[in-house]
């Protein structure tokens, strides 16, 4: 296994491979929008995404600044994501739409599943490979590495993985790209980069 790139984003900043990239002023309410604007992207679907999908999308775009993701076979790039709160933030907004605002909102309902973000990444990048979304108590490097190994042994040659969380206390995404060939101590690298 070889660690190709990482991106961590939260309102505190964006970090590409451990180095801060100036894409928004930290602690602003609208940091995701500001980040999108400063990345000079033209992808109007972004504005409709929920917070999970926005963070996964932005992190992927930031990694793309350094890594050409199109080099991976469209069928063999695997997307493995996890969090603890599932789609909690959108779940509460959806409940609010019918309990307070008067009618269940279809565009919120479709985001009440955490794996929608892998669909957004697949659409944006034309990735047809395998996807899986796990609900985990906390970011667990060993669990991710175990899953990545499963997919590598089934024929995948790269995994784009992410811990992406959105709840009342916390909004963060830690994305990492791993290739099959190579022998590195990824566990330590990832643990350090996630804590950043």
């Amino acid at each position: 296994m070889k660690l190709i790139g990482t991106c961590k984003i939260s309102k505190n900043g964006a970090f590409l491979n451990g180095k801060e990239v100036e894409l928004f002023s930290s602690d602003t309410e609208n940091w995701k929008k500001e980040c999108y604007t400063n990345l000079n992207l033209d992808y109007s679907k972004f504005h409709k995404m929920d917070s999970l999908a926005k963070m996964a999308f932005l992190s992927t775009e930031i990694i793309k600044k350094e890594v050409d993701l199109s080099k991976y076979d469209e069928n063999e790039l695997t997307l493995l994501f996890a969090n603890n709160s599932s789609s909690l933030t959108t779940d509460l907004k959806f409940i609010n739409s019918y309990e307070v605002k008067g009618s269940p909102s279809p565009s919120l309902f479709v985001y009440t599943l955490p794996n929608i973000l892998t669909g957004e990444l697949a659409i944006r990048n034309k990735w047809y490979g395998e996807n899986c979304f796990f609900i985990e108590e906390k970011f667990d490097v060993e669990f991710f590495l175990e899953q990545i190994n499963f997919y590598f042994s089934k024929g995948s040659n790269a995994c784009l993985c992410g811990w992406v969380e959105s709840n009342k206390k916390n909004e963060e995404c830690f994305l990492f790209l791993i290739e099959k060939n190579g022998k590195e101590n990824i566990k330590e690298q990832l643990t350090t980069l996630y804590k950043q």
Partner: protein
Amino acid sequence: MTYGSMITPIGSNSVENFSAMLREESGVDFVENSGFNNENWPLGKIKSLPNKNRYNTLLTEGCKQLTSKHGKEIFDSDETIVIVSSTKANLEDLPNDTFSSTRNILTDELGLKNKIVIISNACISGVIAINTAADYLQSNRYKTAVVIGIDVLSDFVVYGFQSLFALSNEPSKPFDKNRKGICIGEALGAVILTKEKINDDFHVEYLGGSSSNDANHISGPSRTGEGLFRSVNKSLERASVKSNDIDFISAHGTGTNYNDEMESIAFDRLGLIATPLNSLKGYFGHTLGAAGLIEVISTMKMMENNTLLKSVGFEETGTSRPINVLKNNLNKEITTVLKTASGFGGGNASLILKKVQ
């Protein structure tokens, strides 16, 4: 792989369920005031569940069935891994974490030694969970992998599908010309995967499986069946099976126009247009995270009994490709079967099972 447990609107174990299905019983019935504007939607509701605490009650009951059937030893072993498939888990716990009660109940009831793996990947969760279980066994770290699929009815989910204009106002008719949409249901299904046979029950061999994204739309299926086509091809390859070796398909078949049409296109592209298939959503409704499990268990029952169940609700071809949807129960020995699922997020998954001779 063998039977674990199965609780649905028409039965509280796999034998009861299969007899009810042979009698063409459907668990889908009108539920008063279930809609946002107090509509009476047809839903697959388990009548014995209490109004409150439905999820925890069902999960606890499912665990009790597992231990009474198989004993506690296979669950509290450190060579056992449990994988759960659920889309929404316990929504009654909102605004708090909806998945934590799952871990607590499973740990208490089954005495698990290892961490619990939870997969929440929309309607394909169940099939992916079985694929993941097979990965764990192949890694040789575990002797047993238990897969539990569960989801219960809630206003949240019913109002959501209602807001998408996806609900049918009559019991659903997958693949039929007059299909009107989905009926939501609730269920729990569990299977046990092991390297060796664990009892005298019927076992099937897991040959391979995969998933693939449509890369097209987050809630609408691909018009070309792209992801399903790619996933089935990958599963066939992994299982070292050709499409003409497939004797039967347990399809997804939700009863919506776009989904069922998409499946017919994918099966046509795969050379599976003449292969007998059914959708079991007419019996249980669409049980989301439980669907893959209860449909695999029902398919195993069909293999065990050499009887293919008809696709309840289907009368007349309603897809552009004339796939072979079963109108009547059929006595036929089947050896190799394909299970498919498709869902929100553009996900598609499939797996292939073979009768153990």
